[in-house]
């Protein structure tokens, strides 16, 4: 039965939601201070290539951080000034990416494989990573995340998270190699290092994204999408790093290209969704579930649980993958695939279970809100549209019909209308659950925006 409801007023000063921008600023400040201090210490005492990369990469990290902030804030501004701020954000992020690539080329790859090989490796990893991001974004069947934010998440994973781990892993690795017995004990220590430091670095990015983009971070599904995007970004840069390194090691033996290609296959095809994407998606799932839980203790447990699963998954692969038998025969090729499936498969399967349940949970609540909005009779969502909007296939079918009637512009217009209608339903859901900061006026504006779009589509 459809019943009319009036959205309750916003609850911007909830006790459960401290000033998130303050927390985000504090975490970002800690990250920057840690990066600066450690990079300088690394540079002075270790003088390794990665240390130089982390030192000179600080400016890239700062530019990406500032660019992300300007980008997110741009969408809170009116249309007149938004474009200006979007351009500023684009320039800052673009400069950060270029600077980082330059740093990597000069200080990492030029000294091992050379910038040409680094560029080829980057080009080889681009399509697979783009495919991964495409699939990850498509997983959110009810309410897709904007491309700009998915790409920002991937950039954070590639640039900020990798920068964070360089110094920590250098120190841990150097200390362990000087103190421990080489062999299984040292390997276990290094597996803990990778699991803990890399997941903390990527998880920090997830937390920061959540804190500054909370309006786009709706639930467990969004958490999984952003977490996986950060993991894919991290995997992109790590793949380039491993491919160039392995190329330079085996180049003199005449099979540098083959060695790099095997790395590419292992990381960008076989492990694209099984490795970093899965681990960090768990952190995102934890943050996404915490976002909707009613009390602070459960929120903390959910976030910590996400981190523990991610660290355990990463650790188990690094520590025990070598125990899986891989013959030096043709059957070894099968065993390599089996190894990934057996060791990472259970983690990915668990994540898919969370994702499917989250999609069902999100879909049921969106349907409920679509019905309630239709019942208000305000015209943003019509009763006959409820069934269409709640089904991804129905939405696509109607967009394709619009395409056949009015071509690509017709498709795009209807797509924008559907997106705005789902945004409205999502806004209502969060408002009903008292987990939204924006005032009621924002919802009224959103509703008016939908009505304007409807007139535009009709015209």
């Amino acid at each position: 039965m459809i019943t009319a409801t009036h959205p309750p007023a916003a609850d911007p000063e909830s006790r459960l939601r401290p000033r998130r921008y303050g927390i985000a600023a504090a975490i970002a400040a800690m990250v920057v201070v840690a990066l600066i201090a450690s990079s300088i210490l690394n540079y002075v005492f270790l003088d390794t290539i990665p240390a130089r990369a982390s030192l000179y990469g600080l400016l890239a990290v700062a530019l990406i951080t500032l660019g992300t902030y300007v980008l997110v804030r741009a969408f809170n501004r009116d249309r007149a000034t938004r474009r200006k701020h979007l351009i500023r954000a684009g320039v800052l992020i673009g400069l950060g990416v270029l600077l980082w690539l330059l740093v990597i080329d000069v200080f990492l790859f030029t000294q091992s494989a050379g910038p040409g090989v680094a560029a080829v490796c980057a080009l080889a990893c681009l399509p697979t990573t783009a495919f991964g991001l495409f699939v990850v974004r498509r997983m959110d069947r009810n309410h897709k995340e904007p491309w700009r934010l998915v790409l920002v998440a991937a950039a954070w994973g590639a640039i900020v998270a990798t920068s964070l781990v360089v110094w920590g892993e250098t120190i841990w690795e150097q200390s362990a190699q000087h103190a421990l017995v080489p062999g299984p004990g040292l390997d276990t220590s290094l597996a803990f290092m990778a699991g803990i430091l890399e997941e903390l670095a990527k998880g920090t990015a997830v937390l920061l994204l959540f804190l500054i983009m909370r309006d786009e971070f709706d639930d467990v599904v969004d958490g999984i999408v952003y977490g996986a995007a950060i993991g894919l970004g991290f995997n992109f840069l790590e793949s380039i790093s491993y491919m160039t390194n392995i190329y330079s090691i085996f180049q003199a033996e005449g099979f540098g290209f083959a060695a790099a290609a095997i790395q590419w296959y292992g990381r960008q095809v076989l492990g694209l969704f099984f490795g970093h994407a899965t681990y960090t998606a768990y952190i995102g799932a934890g943050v996404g579930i915490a976002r909707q839980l009613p009390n602070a203790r459960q929120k903390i447990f959910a976030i910590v649980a996400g981190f523990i699963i991610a660290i355990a998954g990463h650790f188990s692969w690094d520590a025990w993958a070598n125990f899986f038998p891989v013959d030096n025969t043709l059957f070894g090729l099968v065993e390599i695939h089996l190894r990934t499936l057996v060791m990472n498969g259970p983690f990915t399967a668990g994540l898919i279970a969370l994702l499917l349940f989250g999609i069902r949970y999100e879909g049921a609540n969106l349907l409920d809100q679509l019905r309630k909005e239709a019942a208000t009779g305000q015209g943003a969502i019509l009763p006959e549209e409820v069934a269409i909007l709640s089904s991804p296939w129905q939405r696509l079918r109607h967009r394709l019909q619009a395409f056949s009637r009015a071509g690509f512009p017709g498709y795009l217009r209807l797509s924008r209308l559907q997106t705005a209608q789902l945004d409205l339903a999502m806004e209502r859901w969060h408002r009903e659950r008292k987990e939204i900061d924006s005032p009621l006026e924002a919802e009224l504006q959103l509703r008016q925006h939908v009505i304007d779009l409807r007139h535009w589509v009709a015209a």
Partner: protein
Amino acid sequence: MSSVTYDQLRVLYRTLLVFATVGVVILAIGLVQFAYFERPGQASGIHARVVGVFKYDPATGKTSGPDRSEFQRNEQFAAVVDWNSVPGGVEVDARWYDTFGSIEGHIGPAPAADLVNQSVVAVAVPQGYHYVLPGRYTFVVERLQGGIPVEVLARRFEVVDRT
């Protein structure tokens, strides 16, 4: 908040906690594994003396030149250990690990007294390769207990250039 909605959220939350419990078990097993191979209380106070790491000629089995910490890729090298610096009855071995952690040359395990005439421990060129792999090499003299290395008595790091 409707009870149905909260129940669904609770299922997600509890599922996450169950997965996290499995994660804690995995990490605990990792800690046990670490403790097994890196046993506490194994410091014996014994130190082995590594005379140096020198250029090595596999044809003659002899070392030459000064003690170095960096080698070209087409050079072979070996560590020279003074086994008399270790009590003769202590079971020891000496190993070279390459940049991937693979063993690329070793001597032992045996009581230190039995190794006195095998002071040169060379890095082997991997089978089918022309040169040693570039990167960071670790040389260790280890004390063993029950066949498992439990203490490093001496350690050296070497760098093999990529070019």
